[in-house]
Each structure stands twice: as C-alpha cells, then as structure tokens.
C-alpha cells in the first residue's frame, strides 16, 4: 500500500475563551496551513471548545528535554522572593 502521500502533522492549540491562554489540544494531518486550520476547527472545535485556534507544523516546535530539568528550571528555586507569597505581612493587613 502506497503511503508516500502522507500529509504532514500540525500541532493544534485552542483558546477556550477571550483572554485565556492557548492550550495544546492534539494534532491533525493536513497538506497545508489553510487545510490544517479548517481540519483543526472540525476536529477540536466542534463542541464550541474555543474562540481561536493556532496550528503549527509539528517539526517547527522546539522543546526542552527532560535532561534540561536541572539546569533549565532549578535556578528559579532559590529566588522565591519573586513570588508575592514569600512576603508575610502583619495579620489583619488586608490591602497589600
């Protein structure tokens, strides 16, 4: 069976409502970007699951690897003062 005419894959990201971030929904096969968008809407948007869709060729995605976990993410570990939760204020002080 001839499979040389496999269409490339596109990763689909949908935005559930105005202001929300796009979330990865899955992928579709399509011969080009226009059809990828239409297919993504049919596959991932048929239950009114979104207001906006992004499609990106799968091989355009660059990802960190599990090995990166240490060097990539840990240096944030000792800088907790970046989070507002770090700061304890007096009890009863509600406005800050």
């Amino acid at each position, binding site marked *: *069976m*001839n*499979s040389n*005419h*496999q*269409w490339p*894959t596109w990763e689909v990201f949908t935005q559930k409502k105005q202001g929300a971030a796009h979330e990865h*929904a*899955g*992928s*579709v*096969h399509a*011969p*080009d970007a226009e*059809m990828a968008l239409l297919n993504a809407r049919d*596959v991932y948007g*048929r*239950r009114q699951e979104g207001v906006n869709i992004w499609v990106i060729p799968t091989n355009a995605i660059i*990802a960190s*690897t*599990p090995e990166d976990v240490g060097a990539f993410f840990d240096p944030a570990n000792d800088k907790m003062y970046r989070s507002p939760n770090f700061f304890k204020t007096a009890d009863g002080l509600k406005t800050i």
Partner: protein
Amino acid sequence: MCRKLLSLILAKLIRHLGFMDVKVKTDDLSAKETAFNDSIKDGKVIEPKDWMPEKYRKQLLRMMSQHAHSEVVGMLPEGNWITRAPSLARKAILIAKVQDEAGHGLYIYSAAETLGMDRSEMVDQLLSGKAKYSSIFNYPTLTWADIGAIGWLVDGAAIVNQTVLAKCSYGPYSRAMLRICREENFHNKQGYQILAFLMRGTQEQKEMAQDAMNRWWWPSLMMFGPSDKDSPNSADLLKWKVKLYTNDDLRQRFIDRTVVQAEAIGLKVPDDKLKWNEETRHYDFGEINWEEFFQVINGNGPCNKLRLKQRNDAHSNGQWVREAAKAYSEKRKAN
C-alpha cells in the same frame, strides 16, 4: 617471542575491558529500567521525550494503534444506519456519534505518533490485516435496534475501559482518553435511550430490541478480553500502569452496572446462569464462549472481511484526493 606474549596480554586486556564495557552498558540499562518502573510506581507521567524501555514503547504503540483502529472500524457498523435512521433527530445524533468516533481515532493516532510511528504506517498495518482491532466490530448491524445495543453495550464497555485508561502512565494517551471520556458518555446514553423507546413502543419494536440484546450481549462481554492468565501482555501493562485492573475485574464491573439498566427497561439478559450473589455483592454469570472470540479476533467473524474491504476501498478511493492535495501544496512551496 616477547612481542607475541605482549600482544597476547594486550589482546586479553582489550577483550576484558570490552567485556566490562558491555557489562556496564547492560547494568546501565537495567538500572535505567528499574528507575523507570519505580518512577511509574511513584505516579510519574511519561512524556514523549522521556527515556523509556523499548518494550514499553512497543507495547504502548501496539495498544494505542489498535485502539485507534477500533474507533475507525467502529464507524462502519453504525454508519450503516445513518441513511436509514427513523427520525431526523436520530439521524443527527447518529451522525454526531459516528463523527466522534472518527475524532477519537484521530486523537489516539495523534498520541500514538508521538511514539515514533507515522499514522500512514499504522493504517497500512490495519489495511493489510496485520494489526488487530476490537473484535466487536466484526458483528453485523441487522436492525435499528442494533444501533441502540451498540451505544448502550459496546460504548458502555468502552467507557469502563477508558475511564481507567485516562489514568495511564503515558501522558499523550491519558490526555487523549480524558477528552474521549468527556465525549463518550453521550454515546452510551443515546444508545440506551433508543432501546428504552423501543421497549415502550409497539410489539414489533420490543421484539426488535430484545433480539438485538440477544445478539450483542455476549460479544460485548468478550470485549474485555480473556481472563488475564490467558492474556500474554497483561503483566507488563499492569506493571507500567498502562493497564490498571484485570480484564475480569472490568468485565464484572460492566456486568454489575449493565444488568440493572437492562432490568429497568424490561430487557432480558440472555444468560440463564445470571444471578445476584449476595455474598460477593456481584452478579454470577454463565460461561463465555472463548472459542467464538478467538475465531473472530483471528479473522473468522461474520464481518471481518467486509470491514477490511470497506477500509481498503475507502483508502484506495481516496488515493487520488490525497495525492492531489500533496501535489498542490508542493507547487505552492515551489513558487
């Protein structure tokens, strides 16, 4: 003479070191595998870029591609009745259900591709008869009541399986399953409702419903697979949290909930050994004809050849379309 001795010693040394190197590699692998198994026990979710044992990857790929094939082949017995659905509402609901099945197949193929096999290769395996799909779809849909039976029993059984799979260790599969579970409940309900209407209807409708029940009950029980002692892959799948309960456990769960539903609408379960066991708090049930199951799964069911032919025809009829789309996009790139 001295040189010969030296080279002999050197050769032995090299061989010794080489052997050690191999031994280190093997140790390294089994240490990695142990760490992998432990992390799964700790509830880690495996993602596509994580290291995984080759066996894990292969088992998952087999399981996922078979699941996807089942969804796609499953469109055929129900698709049969779209043009003959007895009301506009039922026609629309059935189209939506079968469409969902296409979508589910797509989500799972999509997740399986993250394990390194193209969808087209998986599809080739299906079309050549190499890959298996759920045996239930090798049975024919003879009447409208069969559509009710499939939604209620077959999707009901699938839900029992899928709710558990949503917690499996492989991230893309569990996420696909979550999406599927959200959509699947309507499938089960619409099937049950079809039969409920039939059982409240004319004498002919009641007989149609009971007849469908008689033909789909046992094959639905077989969907859970043979007892795990007879199932070769179970042990690994349980260890890797790709399977979380035994086939028998899930089958019992399905029977216990479905018998009650049957009784609620007046359908008789075609099993005269079926009996509530007060001690175990489960239903005891009759012997499953595993001979039939193995015949069907190995290609000798009522519709195996037909299903494969229909999928092959769809694929070959669409070849010119897929080629054209590819050619068109290539022309655009060239310009």
